[in-house]
């Protein structure tokens, strides 16, 4: 069969001078030349990229050539579409989303009447099936979540500091009474934990020498600061950033995250910023070997607040 024998298709044809078919460019020949040149420049730049890549050139050269190449190409193709192709405007009818009334009624009947009716006839069975599905969901979800991590228990209330723990710096060197000059600061960890996740993230403590005499930061802490040393948890009580800045003149510890400020000689009371609580203080003593040691753990949880946080006292 040849195509002539088919019923002819009624194609719609737009006349060449139909304004809908005109390019936007005022001078299409010129536009065509320019677009061609832009795309050629893109290809040139891409070849440049290939060379740069082959020579393992610097990143900005590769980025520059690749980026410019792709940008030029894209520019050319877009301009072709925008300036040389028919711009219309063309129109298309919308069909309403909604079905006609018949379709809607029959659809609803199937869902509500056929489905609901069958469920409704065996109410008990439906309820049991529903209960089964819910049980499945619960049984599935709980152990899955439980597999994801241990229960917090009392972990967040504890650190590794104990009675007699030796304070060491990040290299594991213990701190002797005369190691630090007045005004000096060092971050300390429980001996042996200076390279562990927990030691760094939870036990981290900031040791400051503010003088040579015993420092009493608060009533009841008479023995906590021997020989001018005070030690506070380095975890900000706001969101747990390391309180890493010591303003020596003002005797303030400053958290770089949101600028909470804590007074060093006054029990690390927050005097500015969003931190709600003082940094917990670590009670120290000087051992008979001359090393700085902890008298015990912190008297409360370190770091930011949480529901079952143990408070001091």
């Amino acid at each position, binding site marked *: 069969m040849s195509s002539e024998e088919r019923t002819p298709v009624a194609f719609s044809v737009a*006349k060449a001078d139909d304004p809908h078919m005109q390019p936007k460019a005022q001078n299409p020949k010129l536009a065509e030349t320019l677009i061609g040149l832009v795309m050629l420049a893109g290809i040139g730049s891409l070849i440049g990229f290939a060379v740069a890549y082959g020579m393992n050139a610097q990143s900005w050269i590769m980025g520059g050539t690749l980026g410019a190449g792709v940008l030029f190409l894209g520019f050319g193709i877009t301009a072709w579409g925008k300036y040389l192709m028919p711009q219309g405007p063309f129109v298309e009818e919308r069909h309403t989303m909604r079905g006609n009334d018949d379709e809607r009624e029959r659809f609803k009947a199937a869902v509500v009447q056929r489905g609901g009716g069958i469920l409704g006839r065996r109410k008990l069975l439906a309820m049991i099936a529903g209960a089964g599905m819910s049980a499945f969901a619960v049984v599935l979800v709980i152990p899955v979540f439980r597999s994801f991590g241990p229960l917090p228990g009392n972990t967040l209330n504890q650190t590794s500091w104990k009675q007699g723990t030796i304070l060491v710096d990040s290299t594991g060197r213990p701190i002797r009474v005369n190691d630090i000059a007045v005004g000096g600061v060092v971050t300390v960890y429980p001996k042996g934990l200076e390279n562990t996740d927990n030691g760094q993230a939870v036990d981290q403590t900031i040791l400051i020498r503010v003088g040579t005499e015993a420092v009493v930061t608060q009533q009841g802490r008479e023995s906590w600061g021997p020989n001018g040393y005070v030690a506070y948890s380095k975890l900000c009580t706001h*969101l747990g950033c390391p309180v890493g800045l010591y303003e020596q003149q003002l005797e303030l510890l400053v958290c770089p995250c949101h600028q909470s400020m804590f007074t060093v000689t006054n029990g690390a009371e927050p005097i500015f910023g969003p931190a709600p609580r003082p940094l917990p203080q670590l009670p120290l003593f000087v051992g008979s070997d001359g090393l700085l040691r902890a008298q015990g753990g912190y008297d409360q949880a370190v770091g930011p607040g949480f529901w079952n946080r143990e408070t001091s006292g």
Partner: protein
Amino acid sequence: MAEKTKQQAKSSFGPVGKALDELDDRLGIAKGGRSLLDKIFPDHWSFMLGEVALYSFVILIGTGIFLTLFYVPSSTVVVYHGSYLPLVGQKVSQAYATSIDLTFSVRCGLLMRQMHHWACDIFLAAMVVHMARVFFTGAFRKPRELNYVLGSTLLILGIVEGFLGYSLPDDLVSGTGIRIAFSIIESIPVIGSYIAFFVFGGNYPGPQIIPRFFIIHVLLIPLIMLGMVTAHLFLLVHQKHTQFPGKGRTETNVVGTAMFPVFAAKATGFLFMVGGVITLLAGFAQINPIWQFGPYDASKISYAVQPDWYMGWLDGALRIWPAWEWTGFGYTWPLEIFIPGVVVPGLIFAVVQGWPVLERRYTKDNEIHNLLDLPRNRPKRTAAGAAVFALVTMMFIASSTDVIANYFHITLEAVLWSMRILVVVVPIITFFLTHKICQELQASQGAGKRKRANVVTRTPDGEYLSAPAEPRPGDEHVDLEPEPVPDFLEDPVVVRERKELLSPVSFTGVRNVVR
């Protein structure tokens, strides 16, 4: 029957036509395919914003796959022996070591990392602006509420995805961000510490974070987003575009350019342009120089703690909220974290996502809307949207209180209190100001359009006449009456040669015409 098949096999339109016939035999693509090619795209620049988001998403996936081939998601400590000399001999996590190697030893690695990061920033920015266009023009109204919710959920997922990606290189700055995220989760009353332990696999930091964040970042969220993007685009095609009112444009049609080939050309080119811009930025503008930050150590901190911009507004809220921790009933209520870190962003997103419902409850408007609003014609909505933008912007500015204080030499205290006040006052002022501006724009005819000049002439009698000047070229855009997309464009060359017009219904293919 057999004859009919044979007839179809013998195809018009050459080999491509034959291939299309074969496809249609099997898949039935002809009907839907033709209407897809005729799909009309309204011509307005603001409709390209969503495209920018889409294309940067494509680039994120491409560059992301490249990165996964080299990056090892492990916090195992290794001694670095790569080509970045300052780090040689240091103990770092494998994640950090491979990120550094990716940067310095893999050819194009730095470029790919920076492309990925820039694409992320552009992706999120494009989504925000795209959403603003949808909001201010009322494109979210019935029947498109679902697509609005899909889109705004994509924005939230994108923010989470960006945060997770930012965390992967395990450098000093990203680690601080993870620590803060842990603390925010921990602050949720009653169940916070449980959720935090389940998400992080134990107390912070632990060895699980990097591998876990990795799989969420490269598989889970991209997959969900890909599904949602697909649904978003499907709904867009199914429900068809909205359009601004104009000549020939009604609630029951769409006017613009056709999908094929005009829009296809423009869109392909635009994809390349977005890619080109991202590549150029990645080549010339350094972003996230992790080798300068150094490896993560939970007890160290960089003073340049600035999150990526899309997290900045949350950081600002945490910074200026007062230190209101409350201890009651034997438990700690960390409201100073929970409110700004969870409740405030939750409320903002709830209002944004729930807006279509809120607005409908207020206007009682249950009609289908396919024609867009001009923002000025909906002063209340426009003012409300502007106020939310003002609020988020002020929160963002509040995340640099220290920088502001240093720069202007004022005390932190003064900056803090100014920000606390501005965060409340600026959105309120913005609301009323925007409302007023909208009303004035409505009142002044032709606002925003260029005025035509007047030509004054003097007659020989000395009489003055004033008439509007001829429109300057390009000034007056004459809108044509829109027409359906034709099957053929008459070939001007043929017309010139044959000097005779062809009957529009008498032929079955281009070949026949020419012969």
